Each structure stands twice: as structure tokens, then as C-alpha cells.
């Protein structure tokens, strides 16, 4: 059964190869081939999952060694897979949501000339992402890590004819490189410390390494996670990544790839558990990002960018939970999965709205769509209730647990983190209610576009509708299913470990407070956007609002500090090179040339002076030889 594991990766990889190399003759049915590869992979994932379920806890992790990639003395790069309780969760999420989104894309991309290529890229992404979560060592994980980066780049820039898309793809790629360097440095540190980068040996030997090394590895892994998961300070690419087709935003930039950082931290729990400083940095990054994303989400009028801010914020929750250590790992992953459902659903809903609205993304041009798109309204609404944490829905189970774990962290830190999480929950409720109200409620505000076409909002085709319904079901039920009898906690504990912690507040108290702040957020949003009509043109807004519209000045900061700093540094280096190094080099050259010119005058052509120089030389030679003996 274990030899099925490579098939998980192989199916979408083969799909990608066929679709990308097959040429135009595949244009007619290529998209269905993509869907098939993805669904088949999901099927294999299910088989493996049930197989694992049938085994006892100790027997569950499965390993499959494929071949040795680079065998060089002490450096043994293996291509081997590890399917344990953690990987299988990811496999099902990636292939499950992935298949739904493949299906959705069949409808969404129906009129795109390059649809075959789009499905090729989607398959490529699945293969890379599966490789990432199935690798049994960091080097192979890195291959998958780079692979998803490539797929993300290709898909963000899929509509490369739009300069904004091309730029966004480049931006995502560049920012991700920073994180990738973190991962490569972490791998090098591991290799130089432990002599290997395979999970088992590294985790087994982690306690032998010095605190400094572990902190270094932890911080580098965190940097990697920040890049891929759009966490502060490497968050700037995610908003722009919404230039890609909406299914891409749903699959890659909401449900799966951006959670790779959380996977990395959770997978490396053995390292982080021993590096408190790295953990502290992780919770700080998570807490800051969850507020940052939420604030940005409040100010955006572009529905996808509002959702992107939300994604950033929700991943902030996960990163924070992962940084909390054993009390948080399980809930980080649980929130990751539930978020995968409801955020993918929300994005697909947004895509459906755009589909019906001539690709309009400005929510101030929506309004009252619930009458025109009832299915989208219902599924989107269920996703909305799930994300704000409405009791009984998915988000309630996972997010409340994270807030509880934050308090359980203990001490002042615990209070600060818990409070941040609560504020985040309130703001989440606010901006999601805002999105909901501006899109589906109130009066219609849409206008003819530049060419005079009046949008005719309509429900999307069934290829788009079915995935939305399935994801809505997941948004509603997944949380309860996981929480039932603590099944999810029990499932993952063998891999990540679990610790209840000692929350200063009881579970019910936390839930109560959370519900209260969520209600407050909803109420404020309703006051601003429900009770009074939404203006078609955005108001000037407060200083914070204006800053939030500019993504809290992230690009300005990067431009001034990094781009400007970089330019100053290069100018300084060019100056140093021209005046300093070249000066020294040219100076030496001039000195050599000058010396040469003077010395060649000694070569005057007179044999008498040659003889004299020989005689002088002989004298010096004799004298020196005698002198050497004397001293």
C-alpha cells in the first residue's frame, strides 16, 4: 500500500507534463484531463487515508524510499516520502480542495484561450505541493517548496498581457526568494550541525545541538515560513497576487500554498520546541500579522483584496498557534484545514460574483446581489459565518481553540497574545460583515462599464456551483467533525504532541468573550454599511483607513527602506569600486608602469655599465653570503 505514495505526486505531475507538452491537440479536452489527474490523486489519498485509519497509532506513519538522488560520501540526498498523520491531512486538503477548484476552473476559465496551459500549471502546483508535504527530508521539501513558488509565479502572471499581473508575479517571486534563502540557510545549518537533513535523524538529534544553532535554524525556518505564508515582514506580495485568476487565489493563495509555512513550522516542531527564542519570534510574527491583515481587510473595496487581507490574518492565527508550541500545533493545523474550506469557498463565491458582474471587483459597484445569485449568496454566507466564528460552524471550533491556547500560553505574554487574538476576531467579524453587506445587501450600485455594457448578474454554471456547495458543507461541518470527541487532536498528537496548557480563563469564558467581540464587530459593520446606504465612491476616511487602503504603507516602507536602501548601497558600492578598488588597482598598475619605465633606463645598451652591474652584483652576493655566516 505504501508504494502508492509516489503515485500521489506522480499523477498530477504526469498531468502537468502531458498538458504542457501535449500541444494544441489537447485543447479540447485537456481541462478534463487535469481534473482527472487531480481527482485520481484525491482518490489515492483517500485510499491511503483509510488504510492508515485501519492501523494502530504506532503503525500509521508510512515511508517509501524511491531512490538516492545525490550520493556523495557524507552527503546523501534521498528521494523518499513520509506519509504520517500530518501529511495525510495535507494530502486530503490539497487534493480535495484542489479537485473542487479544478472542477470550478472548468467553468470559470471556459472562455480562456490558454485554458489547457492553466490546467497544466494547476496540476504542476498540486504535484509540487504534494511533494512538499510528503518529503521525508528538508532537501526534497525544498524542491517542492520551490516548485510551488514556480507554479504560484506562473499562475499569478497567467494573464501576463496585463502589466499589473506580470508585475505582481514578479513581486511574489522576488519576495518569496527572501524566504527561500531562509529555508536554504536552515538546511545548510542542519547539514553542518547534524550531518543530515532527513526529518527523523534531525529531530532525533535536535537536543544535542547548541541553543544558538537551534535558534538560528528556527529563525531561518520562520523566515522561510514568512515568505511563503505572507507573514510580516514578507507579506507584501499576497495582495498583488490577487491579479491571478480567482481559482488560483482560492487554491494557492488561500487554501493550500500559503499555509506551507505553517506546515513547515509544525513539521519542525522538534526544533522549535527546543528554541524558545524562535518560538517567541514566531508568535510575535503571527500576532502582528493577524492584526495587520485584518486592518488591511477592513479598508479594501476590492473584494479579492479584502479576502486576501483576511487570508493573511487567518494564517497569522495559525502561525501564532504554531509558535505557541505543543498547546497550539494541533489547532494551527485544524484552523488551517477549516480555513481551507471556508476561505476557498469565499474566494469561489467572489469569483462567481465577478463572473456574473463582468469581472467587476469593486464592492462599491455591487449591492443587493442576493436576489440575483441566491446559490452564491448562500454558500458565501455560510463561509462568512464560518470565518467569523459563528458558534457551531467550522471557524468557531478552530479559532476559539487558538484564542484559548493563546491565553493558555501563560503570563503576560499569554494575556497580550490572547487579547490580540480577540481583537483580531472582532475586526474579522467587522470586515467580513462589511464584505457581506456591500456585496449582497442594500441597493444595487452597478453601472455600465466603459464600453456601455450593463452587467446582468446571474448565477454561475453548475461546474462552478457544485464546488461552492461542497466547500460550504465543509465550512459548516468540518469543525464539528474535528472537534467531535477531540478526534483531530487525537489524530495529530502522535506527530506534533499536544499539551492542554493552563488557561487562566475557562473554555466557556473564552467562547463567551469571543462571541461578544464578534457580535460587536458585526454590529459596528452593520451600523456603517447596513443601516445606511453604501456610497458608490469611497469616503476620504481616517488616517488609519487611508493607510490601510495602501496596505498599511507596506509598499512605501519597502520602497523607501529596501529599494531606496538597496539603491544607496549599490551606489556606495559602485563608488567604492570605482574610487577605491579600481583606484588601488589602477594605482598599482601606474606604479608598476612607472617603475618599469625608470628601471628600463638602467638598460642603456653600454656593455661597460652591464659589466659594472654584474660586478656590483657579485660583490653584494659575496658580501651577503659572508654576512649570513656572520649573523
Amino acid at each position, binding site marked *: 500500500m505504501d508504494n502508492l505514495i509516489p503515485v500521489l505526486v506522480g499523477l498530477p505531475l504526469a498531468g502537468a507534463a502531458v498538458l504542457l507538452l501535449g500541444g494544441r491537440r489537447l485543447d479540447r479536452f485537456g481541462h478534463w484531463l487535469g481534473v482527472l489527474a487531480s481527482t485520481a490523486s484525491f482518490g489515492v489519498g483517500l485510499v491511503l487515508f483509510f488504510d492508515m485509519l485501519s492501523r494502530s497509532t504506532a503503525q500509521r506513519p508510512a515511508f517509501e524510499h524511491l531512490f538516492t538522488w545525490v550520493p556523495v560520501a557524507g552527503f546523501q540526498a534521498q528521494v523518499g516520502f513520509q506519509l504520517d498523520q500530518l501529511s495525510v491531512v495535507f494530502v486530503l486538503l490539497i487534493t480535495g480542495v484542489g479537485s473542487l477548484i479544478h472542477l470550478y476552473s472548468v467553468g470559470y476559465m471556459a472562455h480562456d484561450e490558454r485554458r489547457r496551459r492553466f490546467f497544466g500549471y494547476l496540476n504542476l502546483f498540486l504535484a509540487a505541493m504534494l511533494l512538499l508535504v510528503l518529503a521525508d527530508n528538508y532537501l526534497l521539501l525544498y524542491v517542492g517548496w520551490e516548485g510551488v513558488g514556480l507554479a504560484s509565479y506562473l499562475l499569478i502572471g497567467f494573464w501576463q498581457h496585463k502589466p499589473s499581473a506580470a508585475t505582481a508575479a514578479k513581486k511574489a517571486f522576488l519576495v518569496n526568494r527572501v524566504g527561500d534563502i531562509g529555508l536554504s540557510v536552515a538546511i545548510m545549518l542542519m547539514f553542518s550541525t547534524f550531518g543530515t537533513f532527513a526529518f527523523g535523524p534531525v529531530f532525533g538529534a535536535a537536543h544535542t545541538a547548541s541553543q544558538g544553532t537551534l535558534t538560528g535554524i528556527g529563525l531561518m525556518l520562520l523566515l522561510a515560513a514568512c515568505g511563503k505564508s505572507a507573514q510580516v515582514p514578507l507579506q507584501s506580495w499576497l495582495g498583488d497576487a490577487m491579479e491571478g485568476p480567482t481559482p488560483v487565489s482560492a487554491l494557492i493563495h488561500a487554501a493550500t500554498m500559503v499555509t506551507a509555512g505553517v506546515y513547515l513550522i509544525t513539521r519542525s516542531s522538534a526544533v522549535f520546541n527546543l528554541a524558545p527564542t524562535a518560538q517567541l519570534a514566531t508568535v510575535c510574527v503571527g500576532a502582528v500579522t493577524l492584526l495587520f491583515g485584518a486592518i488591511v481587510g477592513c479598508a479594501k473595496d476590492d473584494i479579492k483584496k479584502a479576502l486576501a487581507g483576511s487570508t493573511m490574518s487567518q494564517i497569522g492565527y495559525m502561525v501564532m498557534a504554531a509558535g505557541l508550541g505543543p498547546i497550539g500545533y494541533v489547532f494551527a493545523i485544524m484552523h488551517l484545514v477549516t480555513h481551507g474550506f471556508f476561505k476557498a469557498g469565499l474566494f469561489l463565491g467572489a469569483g462567481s460574483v465577478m463572473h456574473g458582474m463582468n469581472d467587476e471587483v469593486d464592492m462599491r459597484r455591487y449591492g443587493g446581489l442576493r436576489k440575483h445569485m441566491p446559490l452564491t449568496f448562500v454558500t458565501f454566507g455560510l463561509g462568512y459565518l464560518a470565518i467569523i466564528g459563528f458558534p457551531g460552524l467550522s471557524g468557531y471550533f478552530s479559532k476559539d481553540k487558538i484564542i484559548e491556547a493563546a491565553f493558555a500560553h501563560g503570563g503576560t505574554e499569554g494575556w497580550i497574545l490572547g487579547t490580540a487574538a480577540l481583537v483580531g476576531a472582532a475586526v474579522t467579524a467587522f470586515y467580513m460583515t462589511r464584505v457581506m453587506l456591500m456585496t449582497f445587501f442594500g441597493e444595487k450600485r452597478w453601472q455600465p462599464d466603459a464600453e456601455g455594457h450593463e452587467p446582468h448578474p446571474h448565477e454561475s454554471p453548475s461546474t462552478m456551483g457544485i464546488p461552492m456547495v461542497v466547500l460550504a458543507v465543509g465550512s459548516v461541518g468540518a469543525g464539528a467533525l474535528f472537534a467531535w470527541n477531540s478526534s483531530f487532536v487525537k489524530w495529530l498528537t502522535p506527530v506534533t504532541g499536544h499539551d492542554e496548557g493552563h488557561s487562566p480563563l475557562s473554555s466557556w469564558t473564552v467562547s463567551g468573550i469571543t462571541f461578544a467581540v464578534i457580535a460587536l464587530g458585526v454590529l459596528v459593520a452593520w451600523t456603517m454599511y447596513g443601516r445606511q446606504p453604501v456610497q458608490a465612491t469611497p469616503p476620504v476616511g481616517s488616517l488609519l483607513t487611508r493607510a490601510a487602503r495602501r496596505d498599511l504603507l507596506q509598499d512605501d516602507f519597502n520602497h523607501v527602506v529596501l529599494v531606496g536602501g538597496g539603491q544607496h548601497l549599490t551606489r556606495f558600492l559602485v563608488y567604492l569600486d570605482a574610487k577605491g578598488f579600481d583606484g588601488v588597482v589602477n594605482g598599482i598598475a601606474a606604479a608598476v608602469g612607472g617603475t618599469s619605465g625608470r628601471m628600463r633606463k638602467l*638598460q642603456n645598451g653600454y656593455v661597460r655599465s652591464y659589466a659594472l652591474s654584474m660586478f656590483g652584483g657579485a660583490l653584494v652576493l659575496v658580501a651577503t653570503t659572508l654576512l*649570513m*655566516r656572520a649573523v
Partner: protein
Amino acid sequence: MSVPDTVHSLWTVAASSTTQTIPTPHIEYGQLSPMLAVFGAAALGILAEAFLPRRNRYWAQIGIAMAGLVGAFVAVVVLAAQGYAGTKAHLAAMGAVAVDGPSLFLQGTIVLIAVVSVLGFAERHLEPRSSTGAPVDAFAPQAATVPGSDAEKSAARSGFATTEVFPLTMFAVGGMLLFPAASDLLTMFVALEVFSLPLYLLCALARRRRLLSQEAAVKYFLLGAFSSAFFLFGLALIYGYAGTVSIGGIADVVSGTATPTPALANTTANDALLLIGLAMLGVGLLFKVGAVPFHAWTPDVYQGAPTPVTGFMASATKVAAFGATLRLLYAAFPGVTWDWRPVLWGVAILTMVVGAIIAVTQTDVKRLLAYSSIAHAGFILTGVIAMNKAGVSAVLFYLGAYSFVTLGAFAVVTLVRDAGGEATHLSRWAGLGRRSPLVAATFALFLLAFAGIPLTSGFAGKFAVFQAAASSGATPLVIVGVLSSAVAAFFYIRVIVLMFFSDPRPDGPTVAVPSAFTATAIALGVLVTLGLGILPQYFLHLADQASVFVR
């Protein structure tokens, strides 16, 4: 006894001992066969010059020279195969000649150099034919005629050729074969003179720019005689110190294991004699290798001499002189290493630095190569100073590698010509790569080898000597060597840039098409340069096996 009485008794003793018999010297002809073959060819050449009609001499001389050289090479190989380079190494001819690894290795190298050189000497396609239609070579039609005189013109018209260059070369080669093999200082001195005198003559024999050529010959002769005097004086002092001129005997006295001759009891083991004598012997040898401050003759002579002779001189003389230096320092004076080593350090540093720096401003390609040869002498000295087995093998390797690059480079110089003969001014070489890519690329390869770029023999050689020097603790010397190499790389690469990245001059020189002789010489140069660069291991191993001196 008073002083006159002592003198008288010496006389009388000498006179009265006529009854004593001198044992017939035992000569191992077989072991001396490489030298005998070459000297035989030289003597035959003289006879041919005397008795053959003029028109037959050219081919006859080439045949005789080649036969002698090939015979010598075969003899070297046979001797080496018989084990004389290793276990059977010993002193032949009553202790006058050492037949050992370094001797045979260097003799083999010199013979091969001579083969390539004779090919160059035999080239008759480059100069325009004489009015009689006879092809002419690079040498003066009649050396004794006054430059510019009517006699010279008539000799040139008649298509005369100085075929004496071949026997002269053979004598020089014979001396060079003996020089590094000489196992006593007197034999060494005789060998020095035997190979020097023909070289002085050869330098004077250029067909073009004869005055420059003769000036060079006179300078070389005067300074060479001056240096020989130093060598001879040093020899006398060493005899005074050791009471013997044999290499092994000197070494024994230096190490204190020999019983001194009673007649020389007053001077034996007087260290002042030893040190002054050693330094003066050093002057003679350092002059021949062209080390600073005894280098002044090099550029003038290299420039004035006929280019094929320059190539021969630059390579073969260096090999022979370094061979003798190695024998002297490693076999005769290893006991006073700590006295001469610091001095040689200074000489090596000065040689590398001065050679490299002055070369930077040279405008004549032959003078450029002369200064480059000075710098290379410095690099080789770093290997000599190493004073270990690796040092010997590195120097042997370097000499072989360097010689063939030099021969090739000077052979290319003979090809680039204009109406006045060879166009040696560097500015005339501008854009040569556009006009004659093959010749320019060949020259560029030799320059890169001089500079020591990997995949050429120059790199392997430099690496070997620097490694040997570094392993003996001469790290500062290696650093100076590497820095000098960097300076040297500048002027080598400048020539490459000039050839390939400048526009050709409209009145630029043409590249003459040589005969098979020069073509073979250049091809051999390229082959050895690349061969030793890409696969140096075999030759390094050979040099390593041949690096033990017999005393």
C-alpha cells in the same frame, strides 16, 4: 726549510717522480654515448663543411645534425631504461661525469630542444630567395664580410649560406649535455666554455640587422667571459678550501667527513674561501640563467641574435645552466644550505620582480620575451631554493615545459614579417588575430602558457615549483612569485588583446608561410604545451623519478 727550498723540493720531487705511472683513465664510452654522438656529429659537420661542395652542404648538415641528435636521444633513453637514472646511477670517466637521473632527464630535454631548434635553423622559406634563385635561411650569407660592404652584397647575390651553424650548434649542444652532468668543477667549467663559445658566434650570424646582431654577440662574449672569470675564480677558491674539485669530494669536506690533503692543511676548511668561492661560482651560473643582477645581457642579446638562435639559447642554455646549478647546490653544497639560501632568496625575488616589472613597458616582442625569460628564471629559482626532492623534480618539469613554450613562441616570431625582415615591434602586431587567426591563436596559447594559465604546461610547472617552495617553508617567496605572475600576466595578455581586439594596420606585417621545418617546430611546441598542461602527471612522475643526484 726556507721558502725557496720548499719550492725547489717540489720541483725536484716532481722531476724525480717520472718513474711513477699514471693509470690509464677508464672511460665508459657507452654511458657517455649521448655526448659522444653529438660531438661526433659536430666533428663530422666540420669535415662536411671542409670537403663537401657548397650546394650539398645544407642537406648534409641537417642529416648529420639530426642523426647525431636522434642517436643521442636514443642513447639517453636506452641508458635510462637500463637503470642509470635510478639504481645504477654512478660517476663515469674517472668521476668527471655523473650518469644519474637529473643528467639523463636534462640531456633528454636538451636533445629534444636541439631537434626543434635545428628544425628552426633549417627554415629557408621565410626569407625572399637570392638573385640566383637559391633559398636562403635566417643567417648571414658570409659571416666574415663587413656589414653593408660590397663583399656582403656579392655573397648575398650568390646565395651563399653559413651552414657552419649546424656544427656550431652541435658543439654547443654537446657542451650543454656535459654541463649539468659534470661531476667536477673543472669539467663543469670546460663544458661551460664549450657551449658558450659557439653561442657567441651564432649570435653574430643574423642575416638582417647585422650590426645589431654583431653588437649582441660582442656584448654576450664580453659579459660571458667576465662571468666565466668569476666562475673560474670561485673554482680556485673552492679548490683551496676543499683540496679537490670533485663534487662529491667538496661535499665531504663541507660535511667534515673527509680527511684534508696535508699540503693544503692551512686553507682546508677555511670557511671564508668556501663562502666566497660559492658566491663566485654562483655568479657564473646566475649569469647563464639570466638572473638579476646578472641579467643585463639578456634583452640585448635576445633581440640582436637571429630569432631561431634566440629560441635555442633561451631554452637550452637555461636548461643546462639550471641543471648545473641544481647539481652544485644539491650535490656539492647541501651542507651550507643555510648560507646560500637567504642569498638565493634575494636573487629569486629580485629576478621575478625586476623581470616582470621591466617587461611591462617593452615594445619589442623579442625583448618582451627576454624579460619574460628573466622572470621565469626567478620562478625556477624558487623551486631550486626548495632544497628537497620535490624541488628538483619541479625544476626539471618546469625546464621541460618552459623550453618548448619558448621555442614555439620564438618560432612564431620568425613568421611575422615585413619588408625589413621580422616585424618585432609590438605595435606592428596589432590586429594580427583578424588577419591570421591561426598564428595569432598559437602565439596566444604560448603567452597563456608563459602566464601560467591552467590547461597549459606553464600552469603545471608554476604550480609544481611554488608547491615545492611552499612545502619547504618559503611561503613569502611563493607570495612574491604569485604577485609577479600577476604582473607578468598583464603584459602577456596585453599582447593577446593587441592581437585580437585592435584593428589591423593597413601597412601591417604579413605572416609568412613556413616550410615543414618551422611548422613542425611550432606544432611540437603546441603539442607539448597542451600535453603537459592537460596531462602533466606522466611527465611529473618521470621528473620525480629522475630527481636524485649521484655524488
